[in-house]
């Protein structure tokens, strides 16, 4: 228990801080995420991905629920502020997880506007409609960018897994 908190506490807390509005919200979310993690621990499958991605999946589900409950509140930040929190250093990704490193590589392959759509949706918790409004972009285009971007990331993760598998 203590090891689990020590190992993943910073990860969960940092994700929660990124996708909640206040420290109090982040604290609530972190508690709920850890309860989910402990209840779901038996389902972790190392052949399906790293522990960090498993934790991030659980965290995102809980955080998205929280975000949707607050849809009537004003957006967290103006666009100008959001732009300053963009992905910049894939090197930090490799320190967190190998899949994150692959995701960073995939993102570099995307066009800037595609990358921005993924960033607003996945890092800042905006809905696709909110992204369309912020970027003055048709909703269909946002959906298309989001879909292609996620599939591109998934392809990178798969390619890497296969290449590693072939070497062992």
């Amino acid at each position: 228990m203590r090891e689990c908190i020590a190992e993943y506490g910073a990860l969960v807390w940092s994700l929660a801080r990124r996708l909640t509005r206040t420290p109090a919200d982040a604290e609530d979310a972190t508690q709920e995420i850890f309860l989910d993690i402990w209840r779901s621990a038996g389902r972790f499958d190392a052949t399906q991905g790293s522990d960090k991605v498993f934790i991030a999946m659980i965290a995102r589900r809980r955080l998205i629920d929280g975000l949707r409950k607050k849809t009537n509140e004003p957006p967290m930040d103006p666009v100008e502020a959001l732009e300053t929190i963009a992905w910049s250093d894939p090197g930090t990704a490799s320190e967190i997880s190998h899949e994150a490193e692959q995701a960073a590589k995939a993102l570099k392959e995307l066009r800037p506007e595609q990358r921005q759509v993924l960033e607003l949706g996945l890092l800042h918790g905006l809905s696709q409609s909110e992204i369309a409004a912020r970027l003055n972009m048709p909703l269909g285009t946002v959906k298309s960018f989001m879909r292609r971007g996620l599939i591109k990331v998934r392809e990178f993760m798969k390619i890497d897994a296969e290449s590693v598998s072939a070497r062992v």
Partner: protein
Amino acid sequence: MSESGLHGQPDDAMVDLLVKQVIEGLSPAEQRELEAFDALRAGEALVELEQAAAAVSLVGLTLEEPPAALRAMLQRRGEELIGANNVVDFKRPSAARSAEATAAAAPAANPVRGDAGRSGTLGWLAAAACLVLAILGWLRSPPPAAPADTARLNPPALQTSPVPPPAPPQPPTPTEARAALLARSDTLKITLAPTKDPAAAGVTGDAVWDPATQKGFLHFVGLAGNDPSVKQYQIWVFDGKRDKRYPVDGGVFDVPADSSEVVIPIRAALPIGEAKAFAVTVEKPGGVVVSALGHVVALGAAS
């Protein structure tokens, strides 16, 4: 990646729904729409999209340690949960132990994948099917009253932890009841800000309130302990349907000296028509019927 996931011939409309599910969640109508698609294919594709989204969410993440008080709270809640339900620890899932033997016997069946390889001792062959089936179960049946995510990950029929014998129902703790309220979409949540009172220095907190059931909780981290024989904290609810000069008494409470975090049930003395704000004052033991609101330590209003 399987042919029945994102590859092969996925239905565009299905993938659009799944992407929306991953990014922002689906409305009940959209969930019903999703159920019209092949559940196996949808389940596998959803897992793949969620993994991609999770990996992206880790890019550029600056790791920050949680506050000490939160860490202590996590420890306590985890111990409560594991003690109550025999849930296995993530670091040593019981299913993993049996799977490790299987993995050792058939290494070719377990491709090493970056961190997954480094975490290989946690390997667990059956989980892929469980995860997909868990999602399918979620797709096929409406979520129960429990928080949606937990229910999705933890359908009773797929529970991999040892199932304890039925225990007599226990009333939820304030923390659990508050969490249940927070899981509901119609619950009001208000951040409580500390005043300059020394007892409130560095305090964070919030109030949650369910208008339908007239139940709610205050949650504080860092509120100073009190001596009940000298003074007590008292909750006040400002009702938009009543004279705002006379907030409704929400009950008195104490904070033990060694508690960094407390969750306190709100016991409103009168029905609350429209909760507009919450405040906490310091009063004489037993509280007061009408507060002068002269010694407020925390307050917050609905936006």
